[in-house]
């Protein structure tokens, strides 16, 4: 690996973690698409600040963009409060309008400078190592790495300080408010964090990868755990893996690094969606199948217990009779009987079924429950 390659991967990994942390709370609070809205509309802030400073490296750009992000959130809420449009529509109205303004401003007034919509939207990680961070003439590393490292640190500090409050607000906003944690303050704190993170990541990886890194790893982690702390570090881990795999896939295909990383987050999500223990599609299908058989066996023992010791027990306990009484297919009935016998719930003599003690116990329990 060459130095730029290592640096690109480092930047990507740090960005992934920085995005995943606030992303977890966005996903839990059902505001995932706010990241989409913010990461698009900050373009206006960057462009306007650029007009003032005429310097793409100015820190004012980040401040302005972060303010635009918060303005987006407030605007969505303002629209929402008028009661004229629903929240989803409000998001869908605000950010395309702001983004359009940004794109038009760039096209009309900033066409000649290094600020084109493609790079802003799609990001170009491959160029990130060229912007160096120099202090007293010493080359300390790529600028983006320091920027994202700083933002990551900020996110971690915010999380550590407000962990309890964020957790409570994410799972029980009503209780949080009743206990005196200001919901507005927490909301805007989180949104500021999302904005700042989006702005930092925006330059390096583009707005779409910001959305991918903020939503997909946390959603994937949510399929694997029920604990917030686990979800946080799992999201970070998934983000890092996507960053590394995405980089090498892009290297191999010679294509967009940001796009490839977004694809990787999707692939990991797809794998987890299919194979996650308990919540994956396969686990769900398996559980449904098992429950179907177990339910059938329970039905069978209840049926047998119902008629046990009665005059009609002889006829009711015949395997052939089951299809009539329980409306089971002949094959299905045979298989259920076979399984129940193997579990020791009943015994079979000349195609007549007799409950064992264990079978009786199961039937009684099923009744009580």
């Amino acid at each position: 690996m060459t130095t730029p390659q290592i640096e690109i991967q480092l930047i990507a990994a740090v960005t992934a973690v920085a995005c995943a942390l606030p992303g977890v709370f966005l996903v839990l609070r059902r505001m995932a698409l706010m990241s989409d809205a913010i990461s698009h509309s900050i373009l206006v802030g960057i462009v306007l600040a650029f007009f003032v400073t005429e310097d793409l490296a100015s820190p004012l750009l980040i401040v302005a963009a972060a303010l635009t992000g918060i303005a987006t959130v407030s605007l969505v809420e303002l629209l929402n409060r008028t009661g004229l449009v629903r929240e989803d529509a409000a998001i869908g109205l605000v950010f395309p309008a702001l983004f359009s303004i940004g794109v038009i401003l760039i096209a009309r007034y900033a066409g000649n400078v290094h600020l084109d919509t493609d790079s802003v939207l799609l990001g170009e990680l491959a160029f990130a190592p060229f912007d160096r961070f120099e202090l007293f003439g010493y080359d300390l590393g790529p600028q983006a790495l320091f920027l994202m490292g700083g933002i990551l640190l900020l996110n971690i500090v915010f999380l550590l300080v407000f962990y309890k409050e964020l957790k409570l607000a994410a799972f029980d906003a009503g209780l949080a408010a009743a206990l005196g944690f200001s919901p507005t303050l927490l909301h805007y704190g989180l949104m500021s964090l999302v904005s700042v993170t989006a702005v930092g990541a925006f330059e390096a990886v583009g707005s779409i990868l910001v959305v991918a890194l903020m939503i997909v790893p946390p959603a994937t982690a949510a399929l694997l755990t029920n604990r917030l702390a686990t979800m946080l570090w799992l999201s970070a881990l998934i983000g890092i893996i996507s960053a590394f795999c995405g980089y090498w896939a892009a290297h191999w295909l010679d294509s967009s690094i940001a796009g490839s990383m977004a694809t990787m987050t999707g692939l990991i999500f797809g794998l987890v969606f299919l194979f996650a223990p308990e919540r994956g599609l396969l686990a769900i299908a398996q559980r449904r199948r098992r429950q179907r058989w177990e339910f059938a066996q329970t039905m069978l023992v209840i049926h047998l217990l119902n008629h046990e010791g009665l005059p009609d027990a002889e006829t009711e306990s015949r395997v052939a009779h089951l299809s009539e009484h329980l409306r089971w297919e002949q094959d299905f009935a045979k298989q259920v009987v076979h399984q129940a016998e193997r579990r020791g719930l009943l015994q079979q003599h000349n195609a007549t079924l007799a409950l064992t003690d264990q079978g009786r116990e199961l039937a009684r329990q099923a009744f009580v429950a």
Partner: protein
Amino acid sequence: MNLAQLLYDLFFDYTLRTVALGSALLGIISGTLGAYAVLRKQSLLGDAISHAALPGIAVAFLLTGSKAPLALLIGAAIAGWLGTLLVNSVVRNTHIKDDSALGIVLAVFFGFGLVLLTYIQKHIPTATQAGLNKFLFGQAAALLERDVITMAIIGGIVLVLVGMFWKELKLLTFDREFAASQGFPTRALDILLTTLLVVAIVIGLQTVGVVLMSAMVVAPAAAARQWTDRLGRMIFLSATFGALAGVFGALLSSSVKNLPTGPTIVLCASTLVLISMLFAPNRGLLWGWFRRRQNRHKLHLDAQLHDLYTLALQHNDPEHAHSIVVLRAMAAGRGGVRHSLEELAKLGLARHHEPDSWSLTPKGYQVAQQRFNDPLSEGAVTI
């Protein structure tokens, strides 16, 4: 370019006419289907679909090697449809909420689309960037007559289908459970409506672009919603607004240098939303503000009348005048006492006495008696 020249060109200039026609068609179709999406709280599904369409375009190009709009649009439609299917499957099978599911599909599909686009750019020499990149931000100027004809045919089919299933779609939108209980195949209708939405979005991709097409679904419908409570009118208005935004945006962007089409059309649509939210009768913000002012005024008069009546009841002479100082004390923070009294005087319900005191008139006493002793009387009258 002056307005007359622009209008002349609109009808007789080939390029401009094509662009305007195409944008109008796109607006009509996305406006119509957008109305359903907004009413069904699926405003952001459009965003996911349009982003998800990108890899479809790239794959279609890789497979067919042609930039014929129909092939690319079919690819886009398939990908958009797959994206929707995935969103539904994730929401149905896991505890992940729809916002996250939409975000996942949007970002991942788009990212994959970028991978394919950059791959095509570098590995397939015939693919100049202009051909596929216009799908990102749209380029109305590149519309050809055959594109418009394709759009018109597909759009016509979409509109006919909406008309054919008018009753079913209406029921599905407003009361899904009732539709199911009446035996309508709600799942099939869901699929129909989603497919139509996908087609509507795909039609607009060339002109408005992947990134901003979702606004063409949401904005015209959100604007139309402010003017009416009836589905038919809303859809008509939504389609009209969509067409207006499309034509205006396309015209502006082709007559002013360096004005990208997609964003311009979106801003036109956003302006329509803003106007509708402010000025629409009944729901509009200005209307609401005016109504609140009127109500406040009426309540003030009522309260003033009540104060005068209370005082009148405490005196043998109902027309005994009371100083405005007393009335101000009774108002307890409610401002504009003199103004209210003067208004009441104009209505012939109160009378001014020197020095600056007020009383009810006999008519005022009667009205107050009726209104405050029998709270139901006013309601009874209106019924």
